[in-house]
């Protein structure tokens, strides 16, 4: 069954201290060519029936994202593309 993936990211103007902390740690791995890191959240939704993008958008707008500080996108993926299916 295809799933709906919701990607939630902090708006560009909102400071992401977690991302900054990760970016600051990269030189310790010998990585020196990363300009910035932003951390978001990926949510996979499986509907009982057919996947419903509009319904997923409504869920994202009301609960999964806070529109004051975050943007979100929704898209469909096949079951074998979802994170849980990866080995």
């Amino acid at each position, binding site marked *: 069954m295809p799933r709906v993936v919701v990607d939630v990211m902090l708006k560009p103007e909102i400071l992401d201290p977690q991302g900054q902390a990760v970016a600051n740690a990269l030189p310790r791995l010998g990585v020196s060519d990363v300009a910035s890191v932003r951390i978001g959240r990926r949510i996979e939704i499986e509907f009982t029936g057919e996947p419903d993008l509009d319904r997923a958008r409504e869920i994202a707008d009301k*609960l999964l994202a806070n529109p004051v500080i975050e943007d979100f996108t929704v898209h469909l993926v096949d079951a074998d593309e979802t994170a849980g299916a990866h080995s």
Partner: protein
Amino acid sequence: MDAVVLPGGFSYGDYLRCGAIARFAPVMETVVEAARGGMPVLGICNGFQILCEAHLLPGALTRNQHLHFRNRDQVLRIETTGTAWTNTFQSGQEVLVPVKNGEGCYVADAATLDRLEAEGRVVARYVGGNPNGSQRDIAAITNEAGNVVGIMPHPEHAVEALTGPSLDGLGFFTSVLKHLVGAPA
């Protein structure tokens, strides 16, 4: 029900975002309705986060800029006495109450911040160091009517000498009593 205090804590494990799931707790429907009708509501710490998520207050609380949990006694300046929760303070009065949060950084867009300032809705600001990076040193705000207040520090932990750094927090609670006694029936 005369007034409601939404206390601090980590409701629903802070999953998703602080306060995001608590906002949909069954009791919140009643709280939101009563708050819109003028009932005094004070949200402290996690309670402040819930009030923002419930859209009773503008803006949002995000991860402390330095990423550390901050736990210390904090000086605040009371900026507005025209709320149900601050009417017994003097404008500009400095108070000492504990602050203890990991996600207390208040953010809102510039237009919202300007409106809060212009309408006198910044209730308290951090003085002597901003513990979490909150924009414009904001520690507490109120809604347009002044009955709903969200505050990140903990006035309820500054109400007796044995357990708090001062008795300054009592003012929030004597204020709501005064507000309720003086309120028309």
